[in-house]
């Protein structure tokens, strides 16, 4: 990335456009990376790479949570084929009844609606395999973040210890 934001140079980091999805933005990623660079104070390229990996794992955790949440929306109970068939049946009945009504569009998510629980359970059952793999990806991303932080701390600890001069044996 050629641009510098708030004094942080992103030139040495991997271009985020290579690994962002369409609903994620380069600016948000760079803001998150910038915050972590400030908080964790990496001093060399090895440590900066660790911070980059922490940011990527962080982003992946949010991504997996978002995908799981999307899978659990009541509107996801039906697959594409199911929806096509339901629309066709609806159109057939409408033609027979000639009531001219339209099939309601998939509702936008509403928060705090406890009555939606049965529909969420049905969505969960309908997409069990997909949700399972995303929960696995979520726990794997959390593990990657823990490992990356641990390695960064080891590198920084090593750097700090190297700065301490060796003890000199006097006399003897």
């Amino acid at each position, binding site marked *: 990335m050629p641009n510098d934001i708030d004094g942080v140079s992103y030139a*040495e980091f*991997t271009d985020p456009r*290579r*690994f*962002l*999805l*369409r609903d994620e933005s380069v600016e948000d990623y760079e803001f998150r990376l910038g915050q972590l660079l400030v908080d964790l104070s990496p001093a060399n*390229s*090895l440590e900066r*790479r660790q911070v980059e990996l922490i940011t*990527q794992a962080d982003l*992946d955790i949010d*991504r*997996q949570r978002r*995908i799981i949440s*999307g*899978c659990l929306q009541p509107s996801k109970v039906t*697959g*594409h*084929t*199911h929806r*096509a*068939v339901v*629309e*066709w049946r609806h*159109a057939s009945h409408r033609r027979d009844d000639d009531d001219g009504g339209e099939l309601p569009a998939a509702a936008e998510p509403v928060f705090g609606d406890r009555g939606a629980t049965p529909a969420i359970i049905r969505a969960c059952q309908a997409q069990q*395999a*997909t949700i*399972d*793999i*995303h929960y*696995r*990806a979520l726990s*794997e991303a959390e593990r*990657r973040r823990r*490992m990356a932080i641990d*390695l960064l701390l080891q*590198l920084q600890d*090593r750097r700090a*210890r*190297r700065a*301490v001069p*060796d003890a000199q044996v006097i006399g003897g």
Partner: protein
Amino acid sequence: MGARDPSRNATRHGVLAALDVEAVGAHFRDLTGRRLEEICDADWDGSTRAALDLATREAHLDRAHVHHVSCQTTEIDPDMLELIGHLEGLLYFDDVLIDTKREAIRRMFRVERFDVANVVSRKRLALRYLAEAQSRRDSALRVFVALGDPISRNGERITA
């Protein structure tokens, strides 16, 4: 058509595919401050080899990560969408027998189930390759740090 060789999966998903020399070279330059082409035979000591190994693992990790992200979209396969489009056309076509429509619907449900299973399988493989790439890269980093940046105290030296 014969059975697919499962050992080709890793190549197909990029983890064991031929290395991108430029990506390895960029990581090597970040680690050592030197270009890969500048290293002559006499320079290949333990720490330089460790740097090259780490650069290679970093390039693998980047690739596995990009592949993992590319598998995360929950969008339906475009071919599947086209099939569903054909089904919709068929359903609204009045000359087609209702039994034919019913059979088409039944087959589409089967194909869609297979499509979902295929997507989940790809995600599972991508996740496994990412975890492996990360683990190998972390090991290479530990070796590189210990060899290229030895601490004179506390007995943390590692010999090549």
